[in-house]
């Protein structure tokens, strides 16, 4: 899950900071905060220059602090130790902290291997020389992955840095029984989606469930319309700011979206994705575009079995080739590159064996390696896996593909404004993008 998602997946009202800590910090002077990154940056020297010997141990930094993924990674390290005799010391850090402090973490004394995401967030640190390329690992595990996965694991210099563990697709989720009862059919084109939505609205239900109080869920709609309208490559170039925001292609995305706005839940700005999931479960709304983690909210097995999903319909380009499916996996730090055991650990993660070990504890995500055990998959999981396997290209979600500041500080409020009254200022988006990307 992407950072903001994870942050709020835990609960609608998860406070990031304790009030007292905050006031203390603010009391010191809000201005003082600015000094913190600098001071901490000063303390971070380069990693210790260990020799490249084949050691029998490695350290592993994990931001997967929630119970289920934590148990998943423990199963992986246990299986790895059992197989190779190499001991793994795992340092689990609460995931918000892990993500927020990644800059200082990588410059200080990072663990050999650590959990991270594919996409811009990986490429950025690769470009800064803070990661070790793992082409040697990919020589061994390359056959286990689809081309889309390989593409997603490659850094800006063409070398491979990332080893995928699992991912989860974004698509429209709906209740099979409800649709059968009302006679709705899965739309494969955008026009069909609009027709279906109009029909649902006439039936007195909210056609497309939508929640954007937290700001990030709207990225999913934007990404899909953009990719279906302008293609995967344009999405990548736009998020990397190789394409300008101030152009017709971008305005077209918003114009197309405008046709859907009347069908999306008008209360979106006050709702969290958990609220929306409930509304979908209660048959108050017809369908919901979200990541497959939405199923976590359906604790009733009968209800869960009634949930199905379909990919975002075709609009103008590339059919339904591109799928938004954020990938989580492992990276090697600069220091970890000198430890052969860490390379071996990443190679293990890239096998069906390693991913099965993870999935044994966390079955809600889709393993990425070919040959991973699918026998325990629910039909829905299997469908998710098939959609990902059939994808020609995999995007990572806007806040992983773009500069995080562009996503959080610019697009998030801009999309909230768009949802409110359908207005967007692409000129201003471009002005902000120019300034923010220049700072990197």
């Amino acid at each position, binding site marked *: 899950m992407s*950072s*903001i998602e994870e942050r709020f997946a835990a609960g*609608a*009202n998860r*406070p990031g*900071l*304790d*009030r*007292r800590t*905050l006031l203390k910090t*603010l009391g*010191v*002077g*809000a*201005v*003082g*905060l*600015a*000094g*913190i*990154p*600098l*001071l901490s*940056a*000063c303390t971070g020297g380069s990693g210790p220059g260990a020799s490249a010997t084949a050691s029998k141990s490695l350290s592993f930094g994990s931001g997967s602090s929630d119970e289920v993924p934590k148990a998943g990674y423990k199963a992986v390290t246990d299986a790895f130790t059992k197989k190779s005799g190499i001991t793994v010391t795992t340092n689990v850090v609460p995931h*918000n902290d892990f*993500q*927020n402090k990644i*800059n200082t973490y990588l*410059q200080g004394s990072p663990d050999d291997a650590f959990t991270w995401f594919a996409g811009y967030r990986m490429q950025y640190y690769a470009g*800064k020389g*803070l990661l070790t390329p793992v082409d040697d690992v990919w020589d061994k595990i390359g056959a286990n992955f689809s081309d889309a996965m390989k593409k997603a694991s490659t850094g800006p210099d063409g070398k491979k840095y990332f080893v995928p563990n699992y991912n989860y697709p974004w698509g429209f989720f709906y209740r099979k029984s409800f649709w059968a009862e009302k006679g709705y059919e899965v739309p494969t084109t955008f026009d069909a989606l609009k027709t279906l939505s109009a029909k649902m609205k006439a039936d007195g239900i909210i056609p497309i469930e939508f929640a954007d*109080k*937290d*700001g990030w869920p709207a990225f999913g709609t934007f990404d899909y319309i953009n990719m279906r309208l302008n293609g995967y490559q344009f999405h990548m170039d736009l998020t990397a700011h190789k394409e300008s925001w101030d152009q017709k292609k971008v305005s077209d995305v918003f114009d197309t979206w405008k046709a859907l706005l009347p069908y999306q839940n008008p*209360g*979106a*700005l*006050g*709702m969290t994705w958990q609220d929306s999931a409930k509304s979908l479960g209660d048959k108050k709304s017809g369908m919901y575009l979200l990541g497959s983690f939405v199923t976590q909210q359906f604790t009733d097995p009968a209800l869960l079995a009634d949930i199905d999903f379909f990919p975002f319909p075709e609009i103008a380009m590339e059919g339904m080739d591109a799928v938004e499916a954020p990938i989580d996996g492992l990276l090697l730090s600069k220091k970890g590159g000198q430890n052969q055991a860490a390379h071996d650990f990443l190679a293990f993660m890239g096998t069906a064996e390693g991913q099965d070990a993870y999935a044994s504890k966390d079955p809600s995500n889709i393993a990425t390696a070919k040959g991973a055990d699918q026998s325990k998959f629910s039909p829905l999981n299997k469908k998710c896996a098939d959609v990902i396997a059939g994808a020609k290209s995999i995007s990572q979600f806007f*806040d992983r593909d773009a500069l*995080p*500041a562009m*996503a*959080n*500080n610019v697009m*998030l*409020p*801009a999309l*909230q*404004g768009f949802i*409110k009254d359908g207005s967007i*200022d692409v000129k*201003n988006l471009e*002005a*902000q993008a120019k*300034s*923010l990307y*220049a*700072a990197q």
Partner: protein
Amino acid sequence: MTTGIESPISVVGGQGAGRPRKRRRIRLLSRTDKIVLSIMVGIPTLIQLLLIWIPTVLSIGLSFVRWNGLDLTDIKAAGVANYSYVFKDYPPFWPAVQHNVLWLVFLAVIATPLGLLLAVLLDQNIRGSKIYQSIFFIPVMLSLALIGIIWQLFYQKDNGLLNFLLGTAGTPQAVDWFGDSDVNIWAALIAATWRHAGYVMILYLAGLKGVDASLKEAASLDGANAYQTFFRIVFPAMRPINIVIVVITIIESLRAFDIVYVINRGTNGLELISALVIQNLVGEGQVIGVGSALAVILLVISLVPIVFYLSRAFGKEKVQ
């Protein structure tokens, strides 16, 4: 350091007797005293320097550069680009300024007088006064998480108390107190008042206890009614507290942050400068240059009223 210790002592010593005595007093400061005093003065100075002045100066410096926070060699001079970005290109900035002003006006006009009113009422020796005081003060002590939950219960769209009382819960007419950007600032202000009034109340209660009862007596002997007694006699007599309250109200409204943060992290109609500072400096959306520029802007805005009031307060005391 020696001069720092000498001067206050010399004033004390010089008051009653002549020079010889003053000298003897100074010798009374043993080596240990000097070390203790140096530590007592030195450590706070150091902490102040380390935690306030150095970061402040660094922030001001950082607001004129572009930096990704990684390598010191990545720092690039940017001139006033960060400021022009904030003023011209950053859409949440001006709404944030407006909201801060609104916050200040609301606290000054509604919340602070409400706190004063509570204090005056609870000062009347009514039965259970202590219990009421505690109840009104509780919000000040609650943690951010609890405040979030409490107001969520009030404001929720479909099953919140407020919409239930209005009879609109679960209907399409239900007001979306947090999601509707036209009303959520008011919802947040009510929550802020709930806290601020308790804070002001406690301070004024202390102030009212400090007012000499004979003043009130004298006023009533002169035929002043309760209203006149309060506004002509008691309120002016609480001048030191009033200054504290004014400064607190201004500071609270400038650093208002936690309530909007807990609602939706200061987006969609709840933008505040401090929330923007946090958004730009902490975590993933970190843009050090822009965040520092916002922090400096906030600092400058805060300095104006604080310097004004403090200089007025201390200036008048000197005259007296």
